């Protein structure tokens, strides 16, 4: 009896020690990942300083024409820092990027809209601009403010719109017209519901993780998504590097 109890206890102790050992190994692996990240952050920092001071030649000339529409996704908690957002917009303006879509999940940027337009006197809202933004002459910036409700929920609104349109078309007592819904119909419905902006070519993510955080899904089909780190540590050189890398990308579009 004692022997059995003893063996049982010993077994439990061994399992506990084993599990503790596994936990220690796991923390060790996480530390390796963190160390790697910190090294790469320091490396990026030096690289961005070299780019800012024009030491690296290849970043000196950017074919900015390739970037017709830029989207910036900002983590909502960091988006409260309106001064940083404005600084970013001023950098983009100086580089020559005139059409920018600002997204944050909770709509914090939408609330700061007025402040931003007060300071960025050169900028207009996309609602005021009638013609296709990607073709207008670059004398002013066009800003679009988007949040989570303009994504999936807009699709639900568009679906209701399409349903009502079909509802009106059928005869009394007849069957629903089983026409095939095309992408163009949905695009049209989405435009009416208020989603005016085109598909961005490049999406910059300022936040802890590379994720689009609910940006309207049908607009990022072939968008290059680049992680820029936290908005608190944003650097001009990193921005230039991201835009430069975008201009070098070759799209197959599936073929």
């Amino acid at each position, binding site marked *: 009896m004692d022997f059995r109890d003893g063996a049982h206890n010993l077994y439990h102790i061994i399992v506990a020690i084993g599990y503790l050992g*596994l*936990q220690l*190994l*796991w923390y060790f*692996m*996480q530390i390796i*990942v*963190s160390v790697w990240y910190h090294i790469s952050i320091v490396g990026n920092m030096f690289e961005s300083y070299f780019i800012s001071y024009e030491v690296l030649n290849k970043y000196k000339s950017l074919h900015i024409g390739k970037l017709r529409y830029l989207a910036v996704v900002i983590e909502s908690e960091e988006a409260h820092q309106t001064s940083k957002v404005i600084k970013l917009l001023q950098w983009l303006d100086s580089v020559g990027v005139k059409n920018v879509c600002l997204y944050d*999940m*909770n709509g914090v940027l939408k609330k700061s809209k007025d402040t931003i337009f007060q300071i960025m006197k050169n900028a207009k809202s996309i609602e005021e601009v009638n013609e296709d933004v990607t073709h207008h002459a670059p004398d002013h910036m066009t800003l679009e403010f988007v949040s*989570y409700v303009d*994504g*999936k*929920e807009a*699709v*639900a*609104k*568009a*679906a*209701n*719109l*399409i*349903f*009502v*349109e*079909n*509802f*009106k078309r059928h005869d*009394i007592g007849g069957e*629903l017209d*089983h026409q*095939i*819904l*095309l*992408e163009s119909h*949905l695009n*049209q419905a989405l*435009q*009416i*519901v*208020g989603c005016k902006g085109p598909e961005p070519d490049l999406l910059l993510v300022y936040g*802890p*993780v*590379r*994720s*689009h*955080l*609910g940006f309207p*899904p*049908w607009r*990022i*089909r*072939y*968008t*290059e*998504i680049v992680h820029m780190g936290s908005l608190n540590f944003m650097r001009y050189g990193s921005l230039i590097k991201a835009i430069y890398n975008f201009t070098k*990308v070759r799209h197959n*579009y*599936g*073929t």
Partner: protein
Amino acid sequence: MKFSSHTGLSQTLQVSLLNTPMQKSSGGITSHLLGGLCCYLRRCIFSVLSVGPLPNHITFIMDGNRRFAKKRNLGEGDGHKAGFSALLSILRYCYELGIKYVSVYAFSIDNFRRKPKEVQSVMDLMREKIEELLQQESIINEYGIRIHFIGNMQLLTEPVRVAAEKAMRVTANNQERVLLICIAYTSTDEIVHAVQESCKDKWNQIQASKEGKVSNGGSKINGLDLHFRDSCRDNATEACSSLHKGVKDAGEKDALLEQNSEKHSDNYSEGEITSCNGIVEITEERKYKQGETASIKLVDIEKHMYMAVAPDPDILIRTSGEDRLSNFLLWQTSACPLYAPKVLWPEIGLRHLVWVVLNFQRHHFYLEKKKKQF
């Protein structure tokens, strides 16, 4: 944990799979032992990883097969064959780690625009590999995997569609793991399909409730109809004038749609239902507008997505370093970290998977917080 001596293939042995069909590892005692050792080490690493939170669903964009073939001077189809064996080993790693759902982007609707000969050879390869997977000793039975084929199956050729449907039928009772193969899939096609299905559903719902009411009391309904028509006629002039005042240039000729674009709400008053031309039938239409019969909600659309059979992915991995999603799972990746290792798909190995899972574990708390906010 079973120790299976035949399944611990090392990276070197995988190269031989390029030209030979799947077979048990032959060769001397050393390769046998090497395979066993690799398997044991792998299980040790996985037990360490299991200390932290593990993803429930990983998704892969298998990019780089053609580049791999070019790099190694192989024939055109060999890149895809190498890709398939890489897929098998990654599946094994994921399922061993305890990840229940794995999805892969096998063929996009955009890929149909490739040269017809290439499309045909890929289709033939897919059919061949589906048949192979359904063999008795394949990974499917080893892990009890249920297969789903996700996408617009009508775009596939008959033999492939038949093979896919057979695979889904045969594995329908498996419950331990799930493999989702996205074929003839794009996210925009999925969203359009879901919207269409939810419209059809809503229509059937309204028809069903209409029939129910008619069978209860026909004359009463007609009486109601007349009443509403009268009140609608009175309000129609009001509605028309407000319409002209508030209309925006949305490029749509239909007056009702223009109104909808201004309102953005589910509750419509009586007068707004009718068009300026006259009256339309419907007590039911009015009820729909007033929210009594509920309008189409987001959950209705999500219910009809092809990917509704699985939870949203926790990790997305696109090999060969491209930074875009190429119309894959755009709807489902709102809170999903996107990884883009530069390695080509046929060269992907255990170390890439371990690295990605460690990164996921680092950000898991933040991502859970984001998911709750949606």
